[in-house]
């Protein structure tokens, strides 16, 4: 009997590794190997054409003194500071609105979700038209309230704000679904008990709902941060980084260095710096949320 069991187990081990072979090989070739290569490349002046040599930490020294890198950092930081809170609040607000199991709520959930389904490029093309200073729907709508809308994508002061608006519009539906799932887990007895105690809607939310959905908030915050640091599509399609580099983001800059000017060594160093930034923020976010949950 025990021989039969160990035979099945050996059989299972062999089958398991065969079943896992393709994903594991792809993992090694397209994740493990590239991460090691990125570190190596960042220490060279590899530029596709011609010979390349080992330059040590020169690329990193160059980054510190690269004024355009710092412009990209500032733009990405501005985008993150505006996009992350706005994305979180809109997702939470809409989820709270739709947190009921009626047929109508389900219909509206679908309608709210529709922008998520379209690609960033399609969304950008739509907003390119919406944001047209003369013929765009947004400025027309602002005009009804007597507001003279700006030229949006053509003004360096407004271009990034326009991109943030578009990104929130395009992405909140997905996070709303995560929040809706989390809100199902909020204990109804607690909410009722707090209401009976005379707690207002905001106090109920703050002391009962908010702690129960803290895990979802952490997940969404992490997703938003990682997405914000890597923003590219919108800036590439709508403004090509302009006007006057006002929407040049870090990933855009890496793309431009690596594939526009083929400075792949330098681009690798830049992407490694961005990777470390993302890592630091993810860990800090996990720590902060962990501490709040311990309290």
């Amino acid at each position, binding site marked *: 009997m025990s021989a039969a069991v160990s035979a099945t187990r050996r059989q299972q081990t062999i089958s398991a590794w065969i079943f896992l072979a393709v994903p594991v090989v792809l993992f090694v070739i397209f994740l493990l190997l590239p991460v090691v290569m990125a570190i190596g490349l960042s220490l060279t002046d590899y530029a596709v054409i011609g010979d390349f040599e080992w330059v040590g930490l020169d690329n990193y020294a160059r980054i510190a003194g690269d004024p355009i890198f710092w412009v990209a950092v500032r733009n990405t930081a501005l985008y993150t500071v505006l996009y992350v809170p706005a994305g979180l609040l809109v997702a939470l607000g809409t989820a709270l609105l739709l947190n009921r199991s009626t047929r109508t709520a389900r219909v509206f959930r679908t309608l*709210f979700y*529709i922008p998520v389904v379209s690609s960033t490029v*399609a969304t950008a093309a739509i907003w390119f*038209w919406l944001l047209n200073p003369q013929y765009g729907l947004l400025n027309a709508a602002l005009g009804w309230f007597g507001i003279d809308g700006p030229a949006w994508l053509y003004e360096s002061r407004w271009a990034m704000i326009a991109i943030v608006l578009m990104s929130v*519009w395009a992405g909140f539906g997905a996070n709303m679904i995560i929040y809706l799932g989390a809100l199902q887990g909020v204990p109804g007895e607690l909410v009722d008990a707090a209401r009976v105690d005379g707690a207002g809607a905001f106090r109920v939310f703050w002391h*009962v709902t908010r702690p129960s959905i803290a895990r979802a908030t952490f997940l969404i915050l992490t997703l938003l941060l990682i997405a914000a640091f*890597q923003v590219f599509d919108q800036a*590439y399609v709508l403004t090509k980084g302009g006007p006057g580099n006002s929407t040049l983001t870090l990933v855009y800059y890496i793309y431009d260095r690596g594939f526009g000017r083929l400075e792949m060594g330098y681009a690798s160093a830049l992407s490694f710096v961005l*990777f470390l930034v993302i890592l630091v923020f993810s860990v800090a976010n996990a720590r902060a949320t962990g501490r709040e949950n311990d309290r």
Partner: protein
Amino acid sequence: MTALATAPASAPAPAPQQLTTSRPLTARALTGKVVWTLAVVLISVTTVMPLVWTLSTSLKPEGEILSSYLQLVPDNPTLANYVALFADGPFGRYLANSAVIALGGVVTNLFFGGLAGYALAKLSFRGRGVVFSLFLGSMMVPGIITMVPTFLVLRHFPLAGGNDLFGEGGAGLINSYGAVLVPFAAGPFAVFFMRQFFQALPDELGDAARIDGASEFRIFWNIYLPLARAGLAVLGVLTFQAGWNSFLWPLIALNDPEMLTVQVGLAGYVNEYQTQYGPLLAGTILASLPVLLVFVVAQRYIIENFAHSGTK
């Protein structure tokens, strides 16, 4: 956490309270309902209106687009913008490229993700925890770090696209469907997603078949995979969406004009057709239509599945 702990302690019995508050609640409930309806309708208008306006603009003749830009229903609806799109450029080719990439990604991710997810959920072997953690951890690695090296790996892929055994001499997989299909053929998300799905199914089904002498692949293919149809459907929809909508990687790996995807092609039009909104917005509608249709169809499929499991 403190709020959670203290709230129930001071809670009185709710029944008598409800009696006294039931009358004013109806008046408040009514205003609440009106405000709620107003809010959700307003948000829906902002999420749906831009798409409707895009569709309407794409159906207007050139002269009408700017002159009556606020008019939702075109005076003289026409398909001229769509015709121009296919007549002036290789837009049909773009759509075909995107279809190959999106559908190819669905097939490989469902098959390999299913197989690997099943192995991690239902087969016992040493190293299972390590493999699972590696896949899970790899989802946290931002794509940007692997962008440049992955390009080089694909360019120097041995024996592909004119390369020799050592990956020199040609363009490798760059500018072929493989450049987008191969790296994402069995993503960690697909493995993780299917593993979660298989884990919810009972072990006994496989054990019974094993005693009857069925091979592990047969057990997977004939017994477990059919039970995971709902999971496969959801994963298929998500993979199709991701493949059809992906932008940065196809932009890098496919730059031959014949190989562009619909998203990359459309991105080119935003600047090319600065003043020609008609063809641009017609292209936007065509680039969005497949994912919107899949979303609508899949929603029904998933809801039906829930209904079935409810009657069992």
